[in-house]
């Protein structure tokens, strides 16, 4: 088993956190994982990318992910940017934070309104809907190898108290709500 995932979002949207939590969850499931930020001088709001790998053996390679099996788009505005689907394998999964499902015939496209979930759970910081936990939940579910329990464990260990329960709720709402 060797899965490569790429996350697209904006600086400040927490895609690196999401990708790290994702592989933390994978590790709880006994997998090896890797979370790779592409790092530049990007500021809050600018487009950023992170990637992740999950494998049943040690992940040895350290290059970027060029041909992901999964792509997750955290920002509704980014869905149609061309770098988003670049290299995505045919038949690969494209998870988008969007109210409705965009049309990409060559991919398995799944939409989830992570922004709504975030807002419903009161996850707003400085005007930003914090979508990363919702996206984490949805992505975990779609990947198939990550259990609800692991998502729960990872989110709960990251945030405590009120913030913890809000994030947990968002992650689980998405985990349950995502429709493949």
């Amino acid at each position: 088993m060797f899965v490569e995932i790429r996350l697209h979002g904006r600086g400040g949207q927490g895609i690196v956190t999401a990708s790290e939590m994702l592989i933390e969850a994978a590790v709880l499931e006994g997998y090896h994982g890797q979370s790779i930020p592409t790092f530049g001088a990007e500021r809050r709001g600018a487009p950023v990318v992170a990637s992740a790998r999950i494998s049943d053996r040690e992940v040895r390679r350290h290059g970027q992910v060029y041909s992901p099996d999964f792509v997750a788009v955290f920002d509704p505005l980014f869905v149609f940017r061309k770098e988003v689907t670049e290299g995505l394998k045919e038949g690969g999964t494209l998870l988008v934070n969007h109210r409705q499902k965009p049309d990409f015939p060559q991919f398995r496209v799944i939409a989830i309104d992570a922004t709504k979930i975030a807002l419903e759970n009161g996850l707003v910081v400085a005007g930003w809907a914090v979508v990363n936990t919702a996206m984490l939940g949805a992505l975990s579910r779609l990947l198939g190898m990550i259990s609800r329990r692991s998502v729960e464990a990872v989110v709960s260990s990251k945030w405590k108290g009120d913030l913890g329960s809000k994030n947990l709720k968002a992650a689980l709402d998405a985990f349950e709500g995502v429709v493949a």
Partner: protein
Amino acid sequence: MNKAKTGRAKVALSKPSEGASGLTGLWRLRRPVIDPAKCTKCHLCWLYCPEGAIARGADGAVWMIYEYCKGCGICSEVCPSKSISLVKEG
């Protein structure tokens, strides 16, 4: 490349251009919108815009260059006549 081939040295030199970091208007979460009726043409918004993303017309009218406006909201805060409102993007 030609120059390099013929032995002319070369280092990376950047040229002045708007949008050197792309259409930074994309970074925006909130859009500043001017109500021309309220605007007194005081130009404080122009003065304070960190981005230089507010243009001034010959008649003194001001408008946002949305390609680049990052949506910081400062113009709205400094406008003495409260002519600029911030509208959620997307």
